[in-house]
């Protein structure tokens, strides 16, 4: 029995790789939905806000308005696409029933999370870079801290993919799958300083805005571009890690109890 046990490794790397490849192949099959649509949407934002309206706006913190909105727009895509990719990735097998295979396979909850969230985060981070490249066509760009920018991109992609994964497990229908991104994330992102600096708000509203967690994420990301943000970079990082930790705890609880995965 012992010789047989030793053939089963402590980490199912082949399993993780199989799921990861499966998820990436799914993205390539739906390349229009995964990449082209968000890029076109973002390009429209640049045309409208960057060129048409932006040319009549003053600079914010010494940054032209068109360039100022780039980090916010990347974040907007990153949030929605991470959530969409990861939630759909785990919801769809639940919906079609193919999840039986995942549940009967020798993969641990951690491995499942690494594979699904890793694939969703990879897709989002790649999309973020594609949007960044697109933005460079429309506005003069500068990235003061490229390494931090990349790290932040990956961190946010991972965190929101994890959040999406939770939504995917929680959702009992396609409507619920869309609900959180549409009703919570998009409004918070729009009101979280994607298109403006919160310093531009009246003091009372600025205080209210500080309760919006998305402010800290966008501010941190903007800092990696222009060296300044609405809040300090340390606060931004702490907020991001805090959110990541909360998501990890929820996922851990879901797998421990089999929540909406197992009977």
């Amino acid at each position, binding site marked *: *029995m012992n010789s*047989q*046990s030793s053939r*089963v*490794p402590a980490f*199912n*790397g*082949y*399993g993780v*790789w*199989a*799921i990861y*490849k*499966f998820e990436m*192949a*799914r993205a390539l*099959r739906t390349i229009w939905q995964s990449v082209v649509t968000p890029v076109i949407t973002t390009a429209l934002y640049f045309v409208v806000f960057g060129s048409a309206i932006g040319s009549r706006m003053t600079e914010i913190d010494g940054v032209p308005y068109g360039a100022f909105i780039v980090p916010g727009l990347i974040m907007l895509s990153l949030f929605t696409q991470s959530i969409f990719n990861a939630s759909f990735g785990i919801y769809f097998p639940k919906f*079609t*029933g*193919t999840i*039986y*295979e*995942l*549940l*009967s*396979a*020798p*993969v*641990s909850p951690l491995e499942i999370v690494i594979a699904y969230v890793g694939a969703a985060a990879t897709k989002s981070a790649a999309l973020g870079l594609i949007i960044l490249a697109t933005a460079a066509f429309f506005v003069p760009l500068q990235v003061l801290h490229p390494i931090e920018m990349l790290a932040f991109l990956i961190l946010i992609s991972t965190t929101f993919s994890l959040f999406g994964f939770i939504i995917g497990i929680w959702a009992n229908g396609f409507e619920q799958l869309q609900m959180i991104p549409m009703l919570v994330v998009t409004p918070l992102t729009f009101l979280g300083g994607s298109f403006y600096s919160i310093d531009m708000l009246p003091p009372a509203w600025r205080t209210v805005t500080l309760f919006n967690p998305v402010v800290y994420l966008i501010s941190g990301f903007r800092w990696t571009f222009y060296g300044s943000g609405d809040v300090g970079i340390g606060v931004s990082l702490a907020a991001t890690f805090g959110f990541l930790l909360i998501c990890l705890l929820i996922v851990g609880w879901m797998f421990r109890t*089999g929540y909406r995965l*197992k*009977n």
Partner: protein
Amino acid sequence: MQPVISIEGLTKTYKSGLQALKPIDLTIRKGEIFALLGPNGAGKTTLISVVCGIVTPTTGTIVADGHDIQTEYRQARSKIGLVPQELTTDAFETVLATVTFSRGLFGKAPDPKHIESVLRELSLWEKRNDKIMTLSGGMKRRVMIAKALSHEPDILFLDEPTAGVDVELRRDMWNLVRRLREQGVTIILTTHYIEEAEEMADRVGVILKGELILVEEKTALMKKLGKKTLTLNLQDPLQTVPPELAEWNVTLKNEGHELEYVFDSNLEKTGVPSLLRKLSDLGIAFKDLNTSQSSLEDIFVSLVHRDTGAAA
């Protein structure tokens, strides 16, 4: 014989309050074909799902190939292959991709040779680059079997493997199961087609309302409960059963053209010779006669009735 799966005190009560499994104790022997028989909703799929890790047991322990399925799920599950009842497949994937995926998921290093042989055996090799959604229902069923065999399991669960499949596939499936048994694979199948259990199984378990009411060698079971039916095709139809035949409890079938006598073939005195003598005494002539062994289905029906009768 060596046990390959030991189930002890297993129960499952769903959140809805439905008790799907009453305490179940069952040992599956290494290398056997075990048929789990029962009507729809009896708990067959729940039992399989618990062993495979899809459903969490309420109480009880299950050891598969020496490993507890909960604490050592990695070792246990890597030995087990499952073909579920529902045809659930990744519609947009190709046959080859989905079977290769399954092997990886179960932690096995890539082995294109093995995948090829599985696909060939299931007549899927020509279709390997086709998307699953373009396949017929029978082909999809083959794909699901190929997925379950992709990681070379020692224990294979087939949940209603031939529900709604054509005759050819059913025969292929039976052949495949026999070949797998020759390779030493233990096979547990659920079915409500008795003929399937009769054709393939070494042992039969009957499950009814979440209770395992019987586990027996198939041959012993058939012998034990084996009734035979003698059918006589009469020369001239009878309107009623003559009172002289009352002690044999015969019945008339087919508008009085057939006389049926059910007897226990294990008894010393079956009553057949005396019945035939009596008939000739009464001048009742018959053209033909035949006897038939009662099938597992009859046995099953009588068991189910006995059980529900006792409960009522």
